[in-house]
């Protein structure tokens, strides 16, 4: 397996297409970090995030014959990860409507973040700050700032005009600035 690690994505994808499923694990190892950044950024560090991560790779495996390599594999996987995460958030919202006690996707408010400033470390506070954003704003922040995609790539992944991405980024940053005011000088 070690020698296969050095090959490029297209070569490994061809092997998988020809029935060598075992090498798929190389792609999982290669892109799990990128997918984790997208999914955990969107959903938070919870049990469902791991399931959604698995689902992302399984969906790619199922559709591997349709992958033509028009976009980089990382971008393709991020697109799947964002879609599966947004579906999960919708599912949570529906669940919340039926079971009022389910708090898994309760909208976190600025006051929640402020009250937790003393109890949590910076990473957790920033996580909570990101969670105060609505999913459509959260997705642009995660792709642009956490994953480091360009504005154009972010627009392509989310299938949005660049202007919309810029305006969402701008509004999200203004909100984050308010939420994180105690952390910035």
């Amino acid at each position, binding site marked *: 397996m070690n020698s296969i690690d050095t090959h490029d994505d297209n070569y490994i994808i061809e092997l998988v297409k020809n029935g060598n*499923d075992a090498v*798929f*694990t190389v792609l*999982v*190892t290669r892109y*799990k*970090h990128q997918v*984790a*950044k997208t*999914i*955990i*950024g969107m959903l938070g*560090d919870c049990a469902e*995030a*791991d399931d959604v*991560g*698995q689902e992302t*790779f*399984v969906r790619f*495996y*199922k559709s591997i014959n349709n992958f033509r390599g028009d976009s980089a594999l990382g971008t393709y996987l991020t697109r799947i990860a964002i879609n599966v995460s947004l579906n999960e958030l919708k599912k949570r919202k529906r669940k919340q409507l039926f079971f009022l006690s389910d708090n898994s996707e309760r909208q976190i408010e600025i006051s929640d973040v402020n009250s937790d400033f003393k109890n949590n470390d*910076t*990473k957790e506070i*920033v*996580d909570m700050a*990101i969670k105060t954003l609505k999913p459509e704003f959260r997705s642009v*922040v995660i792709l*642009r*700032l*956490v994953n*480091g995609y360009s*504005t154009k790539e972010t627009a392509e992944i989310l299938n949005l005009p*660049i202007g919309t*991405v*810029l305006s969402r*980024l*701008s509004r999200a*940053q*203004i909100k*984050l*600035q308010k939420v*994180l005011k105690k*952390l*910035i*000088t």
Partner: protein
Amino acid sequence: MNKKITKLLIHSFDKDLSPDKKKLLNKNLKSDKELQSQKKKIKEVRELIKKQDYQFKPFFETRVMSKIDNIKNEIDFISRLFFIYKKILVFGFSAAFILLIVFYLTGNPLSFDNLFGTKYMNTDNLSAFLMFDN
């Protein structure tokens, strides 16, 4: 602080401004202390967000591959089931075809009675058949 300039400032982090807009922003940045502080704050927020790093729990690859194995097994089962159904279908169609040929050769019309041999049975001999042992 001018709203338009603030918007320009935030956008400057995510897109290349035209030379005119760049000039306007730089001019305002030189003279406006509040705008300078705003720029610093945005930069800090972006740095905080960029530092966020997330990882899946250990053995993630194993979990993905075992899920894929399960899917493959399901697909195998379905294709085997389909193979069996195909055999049954072929057998059924062959039997029906042979029956049709038999009907054609014997000259009998295709009917329920002919198919199941109930042509000569009426309710009387049915009750007699059920009541008495042969």
